[in-house]
């Protein structure tokens, strides 16, 4: 029960922090390397949280959010992986890959949210034409709905990992997952190295 309550609080916190990634501030508070240890500290696994967070960040560094491209969501991935480890009791390796998957899948949710928001333009235009200005309301609405969707998403994915952990024999594949997980830092470093090497040698 306490774990579930912590999961709810963590999901809400993840929803708030995620706002920083696009909609508010952009101070890098939503980066996985920070979300991971923060939620890890809340759930009693700060070290694993930091490890999961930085590895997710290294993997997601490959994606650049330019021109309105929806990149995989690092904050969501870090939050889900920390909760999958602390709440569902999954091994860090399994939690990591589950988190990566959830962050990638969130692209579709974000895409939908952005499409839905397009419909508001007509409403806002009509308001302004009738000499009514409520932009602060629409901004607040976007922030609140965005945060609520992220919180619900993180909680759902984490709850799914709890369910999967209790139904499936995940321990059976842990050695294979651990092996793949141990190679992830190198994959991340590869991304970090070649990204800048390309920039340096670009004519």
């Amino acid at each position, binding site marked *: 029960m306490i774990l579930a309550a912590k999961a709810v609080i963590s999901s809400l916190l993840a929803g708030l922090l995620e706002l920083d990634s696009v909609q508010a501030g952009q*101070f890098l508070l939503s980066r996985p390397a920070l979300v991971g240890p923060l939620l890890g500290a809340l759930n009693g696994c700060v*070290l694993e949280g930091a490890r999961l967070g930085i*590895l997710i960040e290294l993997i997601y560094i490959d994606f650049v959010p330019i021109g309105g491209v929806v990149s995989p969501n690092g904050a969501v991935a870090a939050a889900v992986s920390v909760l999958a480890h602390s709440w569902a009791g999954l091994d860090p390796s399994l939690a990591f*890959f589950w988190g990566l998957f959830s962050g990638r899948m969130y692209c579709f949710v974000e895409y939908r949210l*952005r499409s839905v928001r397009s419909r508001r333009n007509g409403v806002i235009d009509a308001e*302004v034409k009738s000499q009514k200005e409520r932009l602060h309301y629409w901004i607040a609405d976007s922030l609140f709905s965005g945060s609520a969707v992220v919180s619900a998403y993180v909680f759902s994915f984490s709850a799914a990992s709890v369910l999967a952990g209790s139904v499936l024999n995940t321990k059976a594949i842990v050695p294979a*997952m651990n092996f*793949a997980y141990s190679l992830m830092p190198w994959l991340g470093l590869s991304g970090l190295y070649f990204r800048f090497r390309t*920039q340096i040698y670009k004519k």
Partner: protein
Amino acid sequence: MKADMHVNQVSRPVTAARPPFAAMFLRSFFIQAGWNYERNQNIGFAFALLPALRRVYGSTERFYSALLRNLEFFNTQPYMAGFILGNVAKMEEKLSAGPETAETIKIVSGVKQALASSFASIGDRIFWGRLKPMTTQLCLIVWTLGGFYGWLFTSRAEYPPVWLIMLGPVSGAAVYSLFSIYWRWKGLRAGFECGGTSNCGLDAMEWPRFIRRLSVLCFSFSVIITLAAFGLFIGLDCYGRPLPEIGFRLLLPLSVLAVHRAVHKLGYSIFWVIGLILLASLSLFFALGAGALNL
């Protein structure tokens, strides 16, 4: 240039009152709130510009007309939006002093969109392409200097202090945020100073040289981190083992680097590499058993 002249032609002496920079600056942190596919950052931009429009037009009909104009499509790099915000605030101020014609409105919109594209290109290369990855590098450097190698060894038992764990990501975020806040503010002021010109703010810095220097700095960090990773790997994981085993162990990260490079050159994302690694791990595990992966 024609655009600059025209905006200046319609301008008359305007109010000496400065635009509400502080309110616009604070609101610029929400420039991407309400991001939508139809008009991208239009809601956030209009929201940030609102104090300037109120100052210039009050609550007259022209205020709503100006607001509606600024709810058109808009997209730029969020940290560089200040340049355009300041510029548009200045142009609206000039517009308010003269008659509002279709041509003057078109010029304002043209300058705004042209600058948005230019600053998006510059900002993306600085912030998304270099500074953001640099914060990850800073995190790794802080952790490594503090003796926390959890980012490299996924199963190693370590007990770093919590302050060190938090210091890594916070240091990068702090450097990044200070820099981005500076440009948000400077952009707003500079944009207002040279407002009405279609090259306004583009000469605020020698951007290509700055970008080049950032690239060199980031690449240097990458080299240091990669060398440190291999050094730590050899020193902590391979030390004391027979030479063939060391060679085999070193082959694993090198293979990952090679596969990633090959997949990247083929135009596929990093998820394909992860899929390949997972597939190879599971295949080895089911074919040879857990012992084969106990490296």
